[in-house]
């Protein structure tokens, strides 16, 4: 299975809706420096640098070239990784593979997005090939809206449950100084009072467009033990990409098709001796583009039985003080710089394992955590982190 690899440094920017005070490279530089300081590692000691972002937004074809200086990547090998929404996790996997191969001792992986420099709606709409899909204008949001409706019809979940998830996310975000949207929501009613965007999705049901970067420094076992007393081991990474569903982009209303999430966690759990996910693992940072999706993902990640995701919410199981906390950082619904978002999931899960998440550290002791990533069309990357292997 390759040599052992640990996360030895974690850095991220304070995510915002815009950053006029920096250009793209300087923003990435902030996350890179934060990770180097966290690891107490010198820039010149990082052997390879990997970047991830969704190029169409900023329209910079070779971002790693643009930001080579700010990533201390001058004269170092590396790659740009582009797997759509999962780019930020695929870049972690890439760094992990390089170090696990034994050919590299250290690597830095950086996910970033500067959406105030682009036009997200235009970019996503442009991604739909005109020869097939143009003109069906509700795009990604329309797909999530249809999915929310299907979830309600199939499982009996109510809009109140989605609102509870949104409240949980905001509570976490307000305790996370790096999060973007920190609204201070006080009640379910506040969420229900926000208007509909595309029925039945409300304004508050969907993730924002954020600006930010996240960097992780990875090291081989030998190096990691010299660098830090608290290495977070990457136990496993499983990627499952899939052909688009015949009847949807992120969900299958027919109920007949296999989901990449189910397949990915089946492999992950089997390979790592996990038989009861919410007992054998301690928490998860999942990539939920909407609160409805979060409930559906509880089922597809096998945290609960099918059609019962909303019951976990009702019972408070996934709250920060709950038996199996999910997204104590606020999740994607509070912070979404697309290229960085999956990297942030890994970073936040790693902070929990290290016990360094500050005010949003969960009550339960975290020795094993899972981070997930989602991209279109329903691609999944799941990463398992452990305090000790």
């Amino acid at each position, binding site marked *: 299975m390759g040599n052992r690899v640990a996360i030895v440094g974690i850095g991220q920017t304070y995510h915002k809706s815009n950053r006029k005070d920096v250009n793209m490279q*300087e923003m990435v530089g902030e996350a890179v420096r934060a990770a180097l300081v966290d690891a107490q590692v010198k820039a010149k000691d990082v052997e390879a640098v990997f970047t991830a972002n969704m190029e169409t937004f900023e329209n910079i074809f070779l971002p790693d070239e643009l930001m080579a200086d700010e990533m201390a990547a001058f004269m170092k090998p590396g790659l740009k990784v582009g797997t759509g929404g999962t780019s930020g996790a695929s870049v972690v996997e890439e760094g992990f593979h390089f170090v696990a191969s034994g050919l590299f001792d250290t690597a830095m992986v950086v996910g970033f997005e500067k959406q105030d*420099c682009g*036009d997200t709606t235009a970019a996503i709409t442009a991604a739909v090939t005109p020869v097939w899909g143009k003109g069906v204008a509700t795009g990604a949001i329309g797909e999530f809206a249809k999915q929310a409706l299907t979830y309600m019809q199939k499982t009996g979940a109510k809009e109140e449950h989605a609102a509870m998830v949104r409240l949980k996310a905001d509570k976490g975000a307000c305790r996370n100084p790096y999060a973007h949207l920190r609204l201070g929501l006080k009640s379910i009613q506040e969420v229900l009072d926000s208007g509909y965007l595309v029925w039945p999705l409300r304004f508050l049901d969907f993730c924002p467009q954020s600006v930010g970067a996240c960097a992780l420094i990875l090291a081989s076992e030998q190096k990691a033990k010299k660098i830090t007393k608290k290495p977070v081991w990457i136990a496993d990474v499983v990627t499952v990409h899939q052909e688009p569903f015949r009847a949807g982009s992120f969900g299958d209303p027919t109920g007949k098709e296999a989901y990449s999430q189910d397949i990915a966690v089946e492999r992950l759990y089997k390979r790592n001796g996990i038989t009861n996910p919410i007992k054998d693992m301690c928490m998860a940072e999942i990539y939920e583009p909407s609160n409805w999706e979060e409930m559906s993902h509880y089922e597809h990640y096998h945290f609960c039985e099918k059609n019962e995701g909303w019951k976990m919410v009702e019972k408070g199981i996934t709250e920060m003080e709950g038996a199996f906390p999910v997204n104590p950082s606020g999740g994607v619904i509070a912070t979404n710089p697309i290229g960085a978002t999956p990297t942030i999931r890994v970073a936040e899960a790693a902070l929990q394992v290290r016990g360094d998440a500050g005010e949003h550290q969960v009550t339960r002791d975290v020795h094993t955590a899972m981070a997930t990533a989602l991209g279109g069309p329903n691609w999944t990357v799941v990463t398992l982190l452990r305090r000790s292997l």
Partner: protein
Amino acid sequence: MAELMADRVEKLKDLDVFVYHGKIYIPNTYTAGAVGTRFLIELREKKRIMGTKCPACDMVYVPARSVCKYCFAQLDKWEEVSDTGTLLTYTVAGRPNGVQPVDPPIIYGIIQLDGATTGLVHMLSEVDFEKLVIGMRVKAVFSEKRVGSILDIKYFKPLV
């Protein structure tokens, strides 16, 4: 705008193949950042070209940037460089490509201004292409109307 973006589908003559002619429009507004902004404001307000200095590596970067590529130090020392420098190399672009600041033919040059350790890419004018020589001394000509853009320098011309 609708006219600008109008698309059309064309059927190829002898084949059942259709070609979709259209445009992708994704507007970008790149933030210059604090360092970039200061560089551009100096051009606009004072017709001054500024660089940032890394004393450890003996580098003066023009245009100003915030990090040293060699030692990764964050740069906070600003230094004015001359508006005159040496032409390191040059070329001419003959064909229009839709993104040029002026109509072609355009002479592009890389100029090392006195005091800078990097080359600056810009345009050359008031000179015949055949008369250009590597090593020539050239001087910046500023635009009358300046807005805080690299084009606040209109072009470089040979120093006679």
